[in-house]
C-alpha cells in the first residue's frame, strides 16, 4: 500500500464527505479527514494513486513524505 495525502480545493472544503466517498470509490482506504486543512490522508494499492486525481474537488495527490530526526545523542539535530 502507498500512503498518500489528498489535498482538496477551496470549493469543496465544506463538502469533504462527498470527496471522501469519491476517494473510497476509487480504492482509497481513508484514515483521516482533516477538516481544518482540507486534506485527507490514507493509503491506496500500488499504482492506484493517479486515479484519485479524477475525483471532483481533488487538487493533488501526493505520496507521503517521511521525516527522520537524528538520534538523541547527535550534536546536530
Amino acid at each position, binding site marked *: 500500500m502507498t500512503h498518500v*495525502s489528498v489535498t482538496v480545493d477551496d470549493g469543496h472544503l465544506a463538502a469533504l464527505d462527498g470527496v471522501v466517498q469519491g476517494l473510497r470509490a476509487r480504492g482509497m482506504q481513508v484514515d483521516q479527514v*482533516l477538516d481544518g486543512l482540507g486534506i485527507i490522508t490514507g493509503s491506496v494499492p500500488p499504482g492506484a494513486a493517479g486515479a484519485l486525481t479524477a475525483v471532483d474537488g481533488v487538487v493533488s495527490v*501526493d505520496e507521503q513524505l517521511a*521525516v527522520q*530526526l537524528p*538520534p*538523541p545523542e547527535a550534536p546536530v*539535530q
Partner: protein
Amino acid sequence: MIGPSGPGVPGIVRHGAVGPLPRTTGRQIVVLADTGEDTPVDWARVGLHSVADSRDFADGDVPPEAMQDAEATVFSALGIAVVTAEPGQLGLLQTAEAAGRPVLSVSPELVHHVLPGAPPEAGGYTAGYRDGVADLAARLLAPPAPRAPAAAARFEDTAQATWGVQAVRADASARTGRGIRVAVLDTGFDAAHPDFAGRTIAARSFVAGEDAQDGHGHGTHCIGTACGPRTPSTGPRYGVAHEAEIYAGKVLGTDGSGTDAGILAGINWAVTSRCPVISMSLGADVAQAHPPYSAAGRRALQQGSLIIAAAGNNADRRSGNPGFVGAPANSVEIMAVGALDQALEMAYFSARSLPARGGQVDVAAPGWEVYSAWPMPTRYNTISGTSMATPHVAGLAALWAEATGRRGLELWATLLQESERLLQPSVDAGSGLAVAPQ
C-alpha cells in the same frame, strides 16, 4: 517621526557636529490621531481658516497650487496635514483643551533631494560595465582567498540566560506570551519535567501506539526554547515565551520518525485549537515544495495560525556545500528559519534558500550550542540545529502576537519587519535575527 535630529533622513547629508542641518520649508507636518471617527481638527483655534481637504479633490489628488494657497492641507487617507504656521503656534493643538481631533505630533517639513549617485551621463552605463568586467576578471584570476577567520562571539551563556535568549532580547522584553497558544509539533513532551510544573499544557499524540510522552528528547528541548520558564529553579533562563500556553503535539515517534499523516493531523489539531503559533522543527531533504504542506500552511494562515519550520541541516559550509531548504519549510506559506552561532554568523549546517518560489530562508535565530530542557532525569541538554533556531522564533512570534494582537500573515510580516539585519547573505539569514518586542 522624522525630526531634524533623526538619523539617515533620505537625501540629506548625515549631520554630525560639523555636517549641514537638513533644510526645512517653514511648513509643519501634523500627524493626527486615529480616532476612528471623522472628527475635524480645530484649526480655527490656532488661527487657520483656509483648509483644503484631499477628499474635496477628485481621487484625493491635491494639486500643488492648492497646497500653496491653503494654510492647511489635510490628507485624509493618511491622517496627516501640511500646515503653514510657526512651529510654536501648533502646540496649542496638542493641549488637552483643544477641541476636535487630537494631534499626535508636529514636525518641520523637510526638503528631500534625489539621493546622490552617479550622474546619468551617457558614459555611465559603459563605465559601469567596464568596472564590472574588471572586477569579475580580478576575482577569477585571483588566488583563492584564505577562509575568513571565525568572527568573535557576541554572546555567551551566563548564569542568568542562555546566549540565545539574550541574542533575541527575550530577557529584555516585558512580553511573556501570556494568553497565546504555542503548538510545538515534535517528539512530544516530558510531562514530568520540574521546570514546567503548574503550566497549562495540552499534550496529544498523533503517533500510533505511543502516548504524548517524549521518548527522544528533541520535542522537550524545542518546547523548552519556545516556552520555558523565566526563572528555572536551577540554571539559566532558556525559554522565550515563558507564559505561553503549550500545545505539545507528538507527530514524531520515540525513534524520531514520522510521516505526513501524523504531521498534518498535528497541524489540523493546532489550527482547530486556535494556536496562533505552530513550531515545526522537522523536515525532509526534498527540494520541491510538498503540496499538502503548502495547502496546510495557507489554510492555517487564513485561520490565524502561523507555521514556523526549520530550514534544514543539510548544508556543510565547512566544505562549501550550502545545502537547500527542505519540506515543509520550502512551501511559500510556511516560514523557514536558519541557524546562527554566537557570532551571529550562519551555523555550518544551516540550509540556504532554494531559487524556487517559497524556497527561501525567511529569518534566522540562535541554533548553535543551544541549552534547553531534556527529559528527566537528564533535565538539560545542549545541542545544535535549525531545529533549535525554530522554537526561538516561535517563542518570539508568541511575544509579538501578545504585543500587537496580530495573527497569520500580519504576524509573519511583523517578525520579519522587526528582525535585526545581519551582515550575512539574505539567502542564508533571510531578514536577519528575529528579536523580541521591547
